[in-house]
Each structure stands twice: as C-alpha cells, then as structure tokens.
C-alpha cells in the first residue's frame, strides 16, 4: 500500500468522505460575523500612518512631484538601483541613468544599492504592501536581496483591510506581503529592525 493510500485510508475511516456539494454547503454555513473593514474613512491617511509605525519612511506626493521625490531618495543612497523593466519610465525620469539598472541578473543583486518597485495592493489597517511581482515589480529576488527598497504606491491600490486586499489579489501569482523593513523578535521578544531582507524601506504614496 502506498503512503498516500494509507494516510487517506486512515482519514476516510475516521471522517468518511461525503459528496462535494454537501461539503460546499457546510462550508457556506461557516459563521463570518467579523468586519470586512475596520475603518471606513481616511483610508489613505491610515495606510501612511500604519506603514510608518513599522519604522518605514513614508511620504505622500502628488503625481507631478513623484519623479523628483524618487530622484531625491536615490541620490541619498549612492550606487546603482535595480528597477524592473516594466516600471513606468516617468517615475525615474529625473534620476541619472547611471544610477539605474533594468532587470539586473540575480547574481548582481547583492552589489546593488537598492531597488525601486511598484506594488499590487496596499492594506491600510495593517500597513502592509503586497507585491505580486508583475511588470512594475520584477522578480521576487529584486526586492529582497538589495538592502534598500523604495516602493511607489498609487492611491487606488490601497485597500482598507485584509479581506478586501485578498479579493484583489491573484493567488496563482507569487505574492510577497511586506510590513515594514526586515525585523526579528528573536532576541528577548522585542522587535529589532534589520536581518536578511531590506533594512531600509521607503514608501512614496502617490495621491
């Protein structure tokens, strides 16, 4: 007997299999009295405040101020920043060309000063930014290996709370939920910023 048959056989003997329709009906009866969102108003303010609570550096800029803000942040961190080739060119229009590398090879990431990406969804309640590694976000390694990560968050990407954010996401894509810079609670259970992921997280909220 294969291990699969043995394990499923044990399970079926304890909880006998039922028709899929009956299981679906039971599933639909699960109580879900919790809130779909905890805040109705001021979602963008809440998002900025909650992201900043993790000691990320958050700034709100108008669409016409974005390129200057990106250039300023990159200038403060000399070196080459990796960008995905699908990043809107307007975002980095004011940054010197030599400070940018489009779609860098994974082997080169450790030598970069940082990375600039967009995002798929923001979650205001928890101060979370979700990457789905689409064209404006690049490979998962791009926003992981360099020590500095600048994320541009368009206002319409920000969801009020976790349930709404998950509805907007496609689980078939690889997803990375980022809540502040890399941190650990492993020394005396206190949060300390900075272990393996980017130790500096900069966020520009465009509204």
């Amino acid at each position, binding site marked *: 007997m294969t*291990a699969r048959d*043995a*394990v*499923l*056989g044990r*399970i079926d*003997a*304890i*909880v006998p*299999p*039922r028709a899929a329709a009956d*299981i679906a009906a*039971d*599933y639909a009866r*699960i*109580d*879900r*009295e*919790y*809130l779909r969102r*905890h805040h109705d108003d001021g979602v963008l303010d809440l998002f900025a405040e*909650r992201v900043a*609570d993790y000691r990320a550096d958050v700034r709100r800029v108008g669409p016409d101020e974005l390129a200057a803000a990106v250039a300023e942040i990159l200038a403060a961190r000399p070196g080459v920043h990796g960008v995905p080739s699908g990043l809107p060119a307007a975002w980095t229009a004011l940054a010197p060309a030599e400070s940018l590398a489009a779609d860098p090879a994974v*082997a080169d990431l*450790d030598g970069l000063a940082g990375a600039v990406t967009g995002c798929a969804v923001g979650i205001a*309640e*928890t*101060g*979370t930014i979700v990457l789905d*590694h689409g064209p404006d976000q690049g*490979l*998962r390694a791009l926003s*992981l290996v360099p020590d500095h990560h600048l994320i541009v968050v368009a206002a319409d990407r920000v969801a009020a709370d*976790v*349930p709404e954010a998950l*509805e907007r996401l496609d*689980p*078939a*894509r*690889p*997803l*990375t*939920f*980022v809540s502040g*810079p*890399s*941190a*650990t*609670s*492993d*020394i*005396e*259970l*206190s*949060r*300390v910023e*900075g*272990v*393996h*992921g980017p130790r500096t997280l900069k966020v520009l909220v465009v509204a």
Partner: protein
Amino acid sequence: MTVPPPAPSAMPTYLGMPRFPDAAARAVADEGLRRNLAHATTTIRGRRAGAVAELDDWSALRESGKQIKDHVLANLGHYLRLLEERVTAAGGTVHWARDAAEANRIVTDLVRATGETEVVKVKSMATQEIGLNEALAEADITAHETDLAELIVQLGDDRPSHILVPAIHRNRADIRELFARTMPDAPPGLTDDPADLAEAARRHLRARFLAAKVAVSGANFAVADTGTLVVLESEGNGRMCLTLPETLISVMGIEKVVPSWRDLEVFLQLLPRSSTAERMNPYTSSWTGVTPGDGPSAFHLVLLDNGRTATLADDVGKQALRCIRCSACLNVCPVYQRAGGHAYGSPYPGPIGAILSPQIRGVGSPVDASLPFASSLCGACYDVCPVAIDIPEVLVHLRARAVEEGPRHPLERAAMAAAGWTLRSPARLALAQRAASAGRGAARRFRRLPGPLHAWTDTRDLPVPPRESFRAWWRRTGGGRTEEEA
C-alpha cells in the same frame, strides 16, 4: 465504524528525557532561565493584549477561525485530495508520509537527487517534529538553519524551548558570547545590542543564501482550491529560502490545509497578532507550484501524518489539530513561564505541547504520560487561543488516558489495590482510620514520607491525619448531638 489502529509515530522524544516534574524542578532552580523567560513572556503578553484589543471583532474572527479549522478536519480527505490535485496542476510534486521516518526518507532522497550536500532551512515546526536535521546529517547532508533563533539554537548545540522564539531562554549577553565563540565571521568587538547581533547573523548567512541550491521549509497554510502555500516570517530568511534556490521542499502537517484563498482573511488577522503581537508580520510569502523564471524550478510538498490521524480519531483531543502554532498559550502559561520549554521534552512546549505531544507520540513514555499533568488548569491558554482550543478540557481528558494507558509506578498500583480492599469493608476502613490517627505524631514530626514514597511528599506537605475520623466522631457524639471534647 472501524477506526484503524493509530499509526506508529516517530516524533523523537529527546533522549533520556525525564518526566515533566523532574525536568521542571531542575529548570525552576535555574534563576537566570527564569529571569529570561519572565522578561520575554511578560513583554509579549502585554503587547499581544494590545494588538488584539485593537480589533473590535476579535471574538468573531476567533469563532470563524475555529469553524474553518473544524470544517477542514471533518472533511480532511476531500481537502487533501483537492490540494494535491491543484499543487500538481501548478507544477509541484506531492509526497505523502505516514510517519517521521518516511518523511525524512523522502526529503533525504529528494536532496540526494539534486546532488547537493547542503540545504538552507526556514524555521518549521514540522521538520523539528520529525528530527529532519539529524536524519539529513546521517546522510551527510548539512542543514543550515537560517531563522535567527534557530541559528542560535543550532550554534549552541541546544534545543528549542519556544514555538516562535526557540532561543527564548537565552538573553542578549548569552547570544553575543555564543556568536563570538562559534561564528568564524563574527565582527571583532561585537556588542550585545540586538541590532548588532542581527547584523552579525545577516553577514554570516548572506553568502550561504546566495549559493544555496536546495531549501527546506514548512508551511503555515496550504489553500486547497488554489494549491497555494503560505509562509509567515519576520526576518526575510524565509523569502531567501523560498525564492533563491532551484529546489524547494516543503514539509507540512496534513491539518494545515484550509479550503479557500478567502479563508486567509481570517488567519492573516489572527496569527500575527497572537504570535508576535503585530498588526502584520514583516513578510508573508505565498506561492502556487512553480513560476517559470522566478524562484525555484522544482517544488515538492511532503504531506505528513505522523500521529495526526490518531489525534483526529479522538473526539475530545482532535481540537488540538486546529492549532496554528502562534505560541500565545506558552506566553500566558504560569507553568511554562517558570519551567521553560525544555522540560516538555518535545519541540512543542507549553500548554499546546502538553496536549499535542502525548497525542502524536502516545502516552507510553514517562515524559508523555506526565505532560497532561503539567498544568494548573487555570484556563489562560484557552482564553488567548486564536482558534479557541479548549486546552484544559483536552488536558483532563488526556489525564484519564495517561492513567489508563501510561506507565505506572508499581507502588501506585499496589497502593490503589490496597485502597480498594480497604474501602470495600467498613470494618477494614475503621481500622485503617484508627491506625492513621495513631500515626499523627509521626506525620507531624516528619512531613516527608520515607523510601520510594518520598515522590509524593517532594512537592507536597504530608497532611496530618485528624485525631478522630469523621465516622468515629459521628458514632461517639450521635451526629453532633452530644458534642464534647474527645
């Protein structure tokens, strides 16, 4: 309905592990350990309460979490088959393991097939449970733990003592000393500032991450209808392991499956606030099979039984399978806070360990038979549990099982037989009570029982028998009608 006999489970009991009371007595005498534990658990308790109080609907989230998990357990075969189908369709390979030895064999063979002799690991309770690192070592494969606390445990040749923070028993000065001694690349002049210690770990592991070809992880959740695996973490070591290597092997207990993507809206709110008292943990990664051009090109999922079906067969005990490994119950437990995690003799310490280990491993060993008694039944663990596991209820249930099935002291058996013989006859009972009253003076003088009976009085005062039994008093005074000094 016929229930098959429980699977032989092979979660290793730590070698020569004494009963909980013996191990706990030693731990309680260690003042440094108690100070470290008290500091850490007190800090996190307060912060968890704050993070939970922030959500008005916490009790509704908790109820939904409980119901989703119960629904999965009631239809476990269906959801595991669905998960297998969807993971396979997305390019992953699913393996099944009846027990620890089989899971270790599967992982070892998968690593061997890559030709690699080193793997990087994300902290995972399932791989702790099956003793994977030791099994890999026997096959000359080195497993590098990459979670900071696991690294501390591994470098110190130590054992984990907490589900979330395996090195909770070590303070920053201990960790500095350990790093300076065991990390060849530790910076000179390393201080005990936690940020410095984190930096040392970052440097130590960076080259290893970039060179790693094979990673081993666990999983917090697996979504059946999409075939998506989810790992929550803090440091970024998880992201490194899940994305940089070519081959990813994830080992997951069969109870970790959830029906639908939507169910994560409950668990992504319950878990971070319960475990690290954060609105959200720094990083959560999810992946579905393999993504061409991004991340591992081979993904293997090992579904582990190892005593879980035996637990599922127990109507009271099966609620332990709802556990999402947050460790809130450890942090509030007065017994854990004083005894520490090692006394539980298992990768699962604290209240949840006291109900999981004896169910997964059975109550055959002294430590497992003693674990259901490692509690004052105060109920704090139940109050904080995000999926409402009634731990005290399961403890009481397992106490009965431990008494029926567990190893018993021959003296206890003899004493119980003698008590039965005495209680069956009023005359014999009266005689025994007179004898006890006559022994009053001796009991007052000694307070400790001699010989093997000392086990009872090591942690209790010997009660002084009354001068006169209730029965004798009733007969003498006519039920109190002629009360006078005896």
